[in-house]
């Protein structure tokens, strides 16, 4: 895991812990807040009870006054206004409280008071006509309940007061008539406020307000601006009319609390409750929210300690982690160096073995070609077999190193299954025959012809299994069978069942596990004369694993084994394979000794290699092509020739002292003064480790050829790069091809070398096939040669310069062998 992920995870864990702590603390604080608010609401209802009781008491005292006066009237001895006021003056105890008695039956709202005017001590008259406090009261019929006015200014002393009312019947001393009067018990608001002083002990900033139905104040908290609470609320708490009405209704009908914003946009809490016993008075207790939340129960100290502790732990972990990382980095560096050393070793080993092998195999090839002595030929054939075996061992080691390094990739391409089988059978058939084994081939004719997959690796897997079967079978047979069935869960795929059955030595049950262990060979002693590295099955199994499959082994010790696997392959063309046996038998009958593919006396070739014997091998192998081959034994010598002479193709060795192939080609490419600016340069290398091909192409080579040189591949490559006009196919001159001469000649034009190669392979057994890469090359060829048919790929531009009667165009990449053969046959038949 990368360091940063570990750090991120640590930080996330620390963050999570802190989050949980904070959330817990916040939840606790929330609970605490809710408890505080509940407590505040409780205080509000307690206060409401105190106020309600007080108001009720005051109203009761007012009622006592009125009852006394009214009882006198009922008893037939009604009191005059003066007598009534005189009574009240005696009855009231507190000097702050006064009693007013006014006439209401004539609407004058005038009367007299128990107290004199502040400005005129002799004036006891009182006038309520300009004081609008009775609008919402039914003053002519006050009955029993608390009848309270809003806070107003006492007209006799200018003090803000509240009034308790009741009706009285009094005698008008002037007229002798009974009059309807209103007795008013006037209590200063400050007296009520004094009842609330106790709250200051509990809540420092609480403000109690008493509001009426409309929101006007009887007692006004100092922080609540505006003369109307609801207007104040609306001013500083913007909301829709609907929401506002809901809030007003809530305050008027419910007991509870809510958060509001005050004029400074601060969060505040109001608790509200109706005053019991009064119809339309409400108590509103206001307090800044900060006072209620001051007692938050978050233990910031504990939180801080935990945070610091976690941070220290995090840093300690990171420190330890970094320390281990440093050690790991050192170990990784050592491992990397060891791996590089191993790669270097493999590269060097591959190169160093292949280089002399090139000479051995090359020279042996010359013996095989030139010798007519059967005994020498037999010795030489043994050298070829041993050489190929040694090459196989080297290739296995290289593949295994790739697998170990995780660099082995499965590369899917469209491939012809017949071609794959051809190659396999071609390779194994000879070995089986050499050992006197009966090689049987059972191929399901319904297997689709064109599949998609890693052809090379599949071939390698089957080759390994078949090689083992041949190697470990002394007598009897090797049966190679392949069947195919449509994949059940996906119609586009076919499942190939590959099985190799032999009558070999078999494997003990206890040894089966060793089969797929690297460098492990079963019954080493018994089989020591059988060459091998112990890697073949490991590599095969690894490739199959990469392709989603696995080798199954059934074996009976001493009787033989069956190796099989199922492989899922995507089908490109469902066209069935047909009778492979027939095609294969024809192939066997046509197998013959080496013969040169072409002669090109005018072709000029340069080959650069520091090993003299390799130069000699190269020249010898191509001797029969009659080409003009020049050699150079170093990069510099090669560059000198490169500058001076024209060549059609240049072969350049990679590993050379002083100036290697890469440096040499770089200098060649930079050289402007040379006739070889467009000459293809092919790398000759004994280095066959992974990633080489990319490296050579990137370095500027057109292609590369591994050592030991395979003559067939070398000639094919030359046919690819040499101008067609310089090439004369050997069929023209061989005895056998006198028959072919009367055969039709076909010129194939395509810029894709692989397609050219494939088309040539398909048609060469019946027709004389010449392939060219461009229209220009085709025209150049046609200047000197005849072609009965021109096959030209659809992707190639232009056709006007060819004889359209001889031209067939097609998309050869997608065409099958049979289709093409059919088309060509039809052309000539018609």
């Amino acid at each position, binding site marked *: 895991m990368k360091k940063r992920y570990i750090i991120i995870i640590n930080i996330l864990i620390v963050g999570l812990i802190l989050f949980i702590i904070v959330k817990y603390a916040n939840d606790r604080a929330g609970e605490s807040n809710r408890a505080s608010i509940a407590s505040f609401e409780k205080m509000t209802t307690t206060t409401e009870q105190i106020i309600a009781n007080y108001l009720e008491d005051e109203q009761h005292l007012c009622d006592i006054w009125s009852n006394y006066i009214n009882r006198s009237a009922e008893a037939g001895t009604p009191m005059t206004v003066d007598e009534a006021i005189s009574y009240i003056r005696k009855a009231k105890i507190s000097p702050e409280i006064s009693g007013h008695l006014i006439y209401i039956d004539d609407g004058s709202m005038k009367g007299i008071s128990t107290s004199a005017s502040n*400005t005129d001590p002799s004036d006891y008259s009182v006038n309520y006509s300009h004081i609008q*406090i009775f609008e919402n009261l039914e003053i002519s019929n006050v009955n029993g309940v608390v009848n309270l006015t809003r806070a107003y200014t006492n007209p006799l002393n*200018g003090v803000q007061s509240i009034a308790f009312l009741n009706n009285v019947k009094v005698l008008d001393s002037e007229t002798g008539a009974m009059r309807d009067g209103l007795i008013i018990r006037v209590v200063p608001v400050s007296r009520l406020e004094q009842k609330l002083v106790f709250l200051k002990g509990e809540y420092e900033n609480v403000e109690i307000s008493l509001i009426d139905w409309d929101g006007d104040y009887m007692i006004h908290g100092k922080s609540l601006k505006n003369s109307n609470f609801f*207007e104040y609320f609306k001013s500083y708490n913007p909301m829709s009319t609907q929401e506002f009405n809901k809030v007003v209704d809530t305050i008027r009908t419910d007991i509870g609390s809510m958060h509001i914003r005050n*004029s400074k946009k601060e969060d505040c809490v109001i608790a509200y409750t109706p005053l019991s016993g009064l119809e339309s008075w409400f108590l509103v207790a206001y307090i800044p929210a900060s006072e209620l939340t001051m007692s938050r129960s978050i233990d910031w100290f504990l939180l801080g300690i935990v945070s610091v502790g976690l941070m220290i732990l995090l840093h300690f972990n990171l420190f330890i982690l970094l320390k281990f990382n440093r050690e790991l980095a050192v170990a990784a560096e050592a491992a990397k160096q060891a791996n590089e050393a191993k790669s270097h070793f493999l590269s060097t080993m591959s190169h160093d073995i292949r280089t002399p092998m090139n000479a051995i195999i090359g020279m042996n090839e010359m013996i095989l070609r030139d010798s007519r002595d059967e005994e020498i030929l037999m010795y030489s054939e043994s050298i070829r077999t041993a050489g190929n075996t040694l090459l196989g061992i080297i290739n296995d080691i290289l593949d295994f190193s790739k697998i170990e390094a995780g660099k082995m990739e499965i590369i899917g391409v469209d491939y012809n299954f017949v071609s794959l089988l051809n190659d396999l059978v071609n390779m194994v058939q000879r070995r089986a025959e050499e050992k006197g084994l009966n090689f049987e081939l059972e191929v399901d004719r319904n297997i689709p012809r064109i599949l998609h997959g890693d052809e090379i690796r599949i071939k390698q897997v089957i080759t390994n299994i078949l090689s083992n079967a041949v190697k470990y079978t002394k007598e009897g047979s090797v049966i190679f069978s392949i069947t195919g069935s449509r994949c059940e869960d996906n119609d586009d795929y076919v499942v190939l069942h590959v099985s190799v059955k032999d009558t070999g030595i078999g494997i003990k049950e206890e040894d089966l596990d060793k089969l797929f262990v690297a460098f492990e060979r079963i019954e080493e002693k018994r089989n020591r004369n059988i060459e091998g590295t112990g890697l073949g099955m490991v590599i095969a199994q690894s490739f199959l694993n990469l392709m989603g499959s696995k080798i199954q082994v059934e074996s009976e010790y001493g009787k033989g084994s069956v190796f099989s696997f199922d492989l899922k392959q995507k089908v490109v063309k469902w066209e069935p394979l047909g009778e492979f046996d027939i095609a294969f038998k024809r192939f066997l009958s046509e197998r013959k000794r080496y013969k040169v593919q072409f002669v090109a006396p005018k072709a000029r070739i340069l080959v650069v290699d520091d090993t003299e014997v390799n130069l000699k091998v190269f020249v010898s192998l191509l001797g029969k092509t009659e080409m003009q081959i020049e050699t150079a034994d170093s990069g510099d010598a090669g560059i000198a020739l490169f500058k001076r002479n024209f060549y059609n193709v240049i072969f350049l060795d990679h590993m050379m002292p002083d100036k290697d192939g890469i440096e040499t080609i770089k200098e060649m490419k930079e050289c402007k003064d040379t006739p070889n600016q467009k000459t293809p340069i092919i790398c000759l290398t004994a280095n066959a480790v992974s990633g080489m091909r990319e490296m050579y192409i990137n370095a500027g080579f057109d292609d590369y050829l591994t050592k030991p040189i395979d003559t067939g591949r070398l000639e094919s490559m030359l046919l690819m790069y040499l101008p067609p006009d310089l090439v004369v196919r050997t069929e023209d001159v061989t005895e056998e091809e006198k028959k072919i001469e009367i055969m039709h000649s076909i010129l194939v034009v395509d810029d894709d070398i692989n397609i050219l190669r494939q088309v040539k392979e398909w048609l060469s057994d019946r027709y004389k096939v010449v392939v060219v890469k461009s229209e220009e090359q085709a025209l150049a060829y046609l200047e000197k040669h005849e072609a009965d048919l021109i096959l030209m790929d659809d992707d190639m531009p232009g056709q006007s310069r060819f004889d359209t009667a001889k031209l067939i165009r097609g998309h050869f990449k997608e065409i099958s062998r049979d289709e093409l053969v059919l088309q060509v046959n039809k052309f000539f038949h018609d």
Partner: protein
Amino acid sequence: MSKRFKIVVSVVITAMMVLGTVGCGQSRKSAKEFSPKYSKDTEYKLSVVGTYSNFESLESAFERFYAHYPKGEIEYTYLDDYRNTIGQALAGQEPPDIYVVQPWMYGDEQYAPLFEGAEVLSDPKLEIDLDCIRSGVRWEPDNGEVLALPVFATSYGMLVNRDIFDKEKLEVPKTFEELKETCEKLKAAGYDSPVMGANTTTTPGIGYAFAYPMFAKTVKDDKTKEADLNNLVPSAGEAMRDSLSRLKEFVDCGCIDVKKCTAEIEDDYNAVIMRFFEGDVPMMLCSGDVVSGTKKRESKSEAFSANPFKYDFYVAPSGDEGGYYMDSVSLLFSVNKNSESLDMTNEFIRFLTSEKELGLMAEEKRLITPAKDYSLDEVYASLSGFPEDRVISFSDTEILDTAVKQFRAAAYSVVNGEMTVDEAVAGYGTIPVD
């Protein structure tokens, strides 16, 4: 003296002058900032009583004052029946520290205690910056002692629906002729009564708002008429002729449909505002006090909430050369010199007496500031830079309340066709008032 030397001397002198000017500016600026006289920990409790049932702009000033003196409390209380109760309150056990007075109270025996008990605010010891008040609204009785601080100024004129004028591509009229032409165009555009107003005898009423400033200008131009007018001498009624004639012409030319006004505007305050907010009245005659109620009522008017529009206050274009701007005092504060917290009361008044505080209060109350700098409230932007020769300041005339009531009654009678101009002029002193 070399040329280079001269240049150096010139540069030095210029720099000194610039720096000196900047320095002077800074000292002047800093002098305007309120600097508390007393300790921040001073505890106090002050009370202010007044005639406004709702005085949020003052309560906002309290909060700004608390920033300087946090350990105190100032309470504003509305007194019912202020005319009769303020005297009682001052004589009572808990007299207010600050109380509202109005110019008409001065000279009235009933209110004599209000002025006798008032602190002299012009006393240099108090360091109250009365210079920030416009001279026109500064109230300095004969002895030069300033007993009350003007808090708000007001005027008379009309609210103009700017959206209608923009829609009809009309300019707000400045002269009476322009008013008539504009009204013709507005009527053609479908506005039956281009001008509306409360058909009352009160100060925001049609007659007073339109014609009184013109009448006051007449008196200002000929102060000899003032005494007779105040003494209700019938012949003094002649001073009303020009303004009443213009009022009659205003009604007769169809600028205003008085019957429509009577039917649709029930009172001289709330109904005026709510009718104006209906959005179909191009011009609404009113007083500055009415304008002060507009801000609160914008949200109460469903019509205005649904279709808000831009509106401004303009002087009514009653004169041939233009309208007349009555720069009147709306409200004054006096300090009770017997206050138990006299020092802090004076400190609060000193705090309040600044262009900034008076401006902020006026802006919040949407009244005209008495300070030299007009409120930033764009509703009153038209008053800024009003020609001096057509401004009638509070101190320019001393028309007593009784004379004013005669004019209001006369104007109402003329507007409603109950009297001709001649009858109204002839009846001066005996025209029935409420």
